[in-house]
């Protein structure tokens, strides 16, 4: 076995592979197919202060080499989440990254505070949630709002804070710099690209919410470009994601500068994807004689 471990914000992950928030639940359901203990970390679905209903159905639609979703961050709220999801995960030999969502600064901060004394390794802040004050526009598309919310969260967080960037912006490097200026310890990207699909026979939107977030291999080139831009603009570690479905994809993201990688939509096509990526990275390192993945990180 090659040494796949990485240091991420001072936390040792046994390998750089995690799952993309929202595609894997908290691992309980995938446990039948995947040995969750093998993952470097599990990133949970988004959790908010109170239970969220999510959007009406249909919540998803298939697209060419991708899919769209508008699940709408349905979740049972932080208390139930701690009782079931964290309870499950803390028995596993894997790091825990909790994805946090909210409609206002107060809601985000509430979740972050509640997690202070819980066995959680890292916080991933999903700033693609509709911001009530900004009239439903996401926190993550305005650098000023992003810097501010990062600051507020950092004040209360015990764990390292990773801001998850939205790709629906003109200048991703500017967003990364804003998050880092706000004190972000790490960044993850990309979240989904906003898309739309129309059912021409029924003359309606394919997704009840009208628009949905595009993910999967279709968006990989955009994701890789943004990860590259961000890794060359700021110095904090990055979790790269967007269409990763193979170890080769993972290596691309690492070469672009990512320290860790997430597998999202690909879990739906093949629940064994994470294992294949870990095994593939291992063989690759052995074949190339790499002592650490840092030897190929950001080599371009």
């Amino acid at each position, binding site marked *: 076995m090659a040494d796949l471990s990485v240091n991420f914000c001072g936390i040792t992950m046994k390998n750089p592979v995690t799952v993309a928030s929202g*595609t894997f639940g908290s691992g309980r*359901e*995938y446990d039948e*197919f995947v040995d969750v203990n093998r993952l470097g970390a599990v990133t949970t679905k988004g959790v908010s202060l109170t239970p*969220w209903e*999510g959007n009406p159905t249909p919540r998803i639609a298939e697209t060419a080499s991708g*899919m769209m979703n508008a699940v709408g961050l*349905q979740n049972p709220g932080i208390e139930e989440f701690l009782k079931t999801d964290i309870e499950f995960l803390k028995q596993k030999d894997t790091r825990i990254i909790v994805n946090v969502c909210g409609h206002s600064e107060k809601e985000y901060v509430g979740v972050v505070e509640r997690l202070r004394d819980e066995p959680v390794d890292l916080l991933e802040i999903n700033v693609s949630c509709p911001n009530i004050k900004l009239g439903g526009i996401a926190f993550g598309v305005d650098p000023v709002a992003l810097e501010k919310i990062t600051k507020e969260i950092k004040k209360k967080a015990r764990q390292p804070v990773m801001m998850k960037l939205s790709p629906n912006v003109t200048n991703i490097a500017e967003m990364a710099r804003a998050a880092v200026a706000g004190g972000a310890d790490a960044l993850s990207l990309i979240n989904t690209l906003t898309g739309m699909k129309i059912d021409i026979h029924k003359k309606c939107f394919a997704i009840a919410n009208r628009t949905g977030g595009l993910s999967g291999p279709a968006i990989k080139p955009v994701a890789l470009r943004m990860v590259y831009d961000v890794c060359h603009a700021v110095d904090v570690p990055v979790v790269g994601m967007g269409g990763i479905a193979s170890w080769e994809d993972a290596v691309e993201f690492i070469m672009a500068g990512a320290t860790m990688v997430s597998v999202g939509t690909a879990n*739906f*096509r093949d629940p064994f994807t994470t294992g294949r990526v870990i095994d593939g990275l291992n063989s690759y390192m052995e074949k190339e004689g790499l002592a650490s993945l840092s030897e190929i990180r950001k080599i371009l």
Partner: protein
Amino acid sequence: MEQTKKFMHVAEVVSQSRLTEDICSLWIKDRDIAENARPGQFVSLFTRADSRMLPRPISICETNRNKGTIRLVYRIVGSGTKEFSCLSGGEPIEIMGPLGNGYDLNCKEPVLMGGGIGIPPLLMLAKELSAMGIPKKQLHVILGYRDNAFLLDEFKKIADIHISSDSGAIGRKGNVVDCAREEDVTGECIFSCGPTPMLRAVKRYAYENDIPAQLSLEEHMACGIGACLACVTRTAEPDEHFKVNTRRVCKDGPVFYAEEVEL
């Protein structure tokens, strides 16, 4: 119902045939699924095209435990089912299952009401109920077709059959509920699967006649195992874990009691 273990395999197609112009009957060799499947459960079928990321949920229509095979009957409606329709014996197919809860079989005089492509899962159910000892004349089955019938002869062997069709081309003109009313079909409980408007009618009929009804629902799915929350349906009561009024069709369903769900 307690959850069954799920399997994911590259299985082998045994054979495929056409039942009507656009309805296919596919036998797949998969001993694990064949041995564990219950009526009302489904499988996820994966397409070969790497441009298609999502599995296609298809109900289990029949199993042969001796041969370790399962049968799926589906209508060609889009890209995935079109691809499946080209499969022939010996070819590999990726499959995950058995998924979902399945029907609660505890019933002396069942009425099965199936519409269109909701009919196939009722065949497995009817066979199982028949095998449990329910006599033919107490096993009522109402089948609603668009136009051409399929699977009819197989039901006829074990059940008391009533037929309706949208066009009136076969059986009574109208839907399965009209048929139940007009032919005065009653029983102890209803098992239904079909398009949502039909399920809505069944739900109302069951309520009016005070018969418990189990409905098998459809929703677009991504994970198929309860992780992604793509496939929820609205429920009357909040979900125990999720705290809101939705439940997952892939894991908590596809079968729900009529009073549980809001259609």
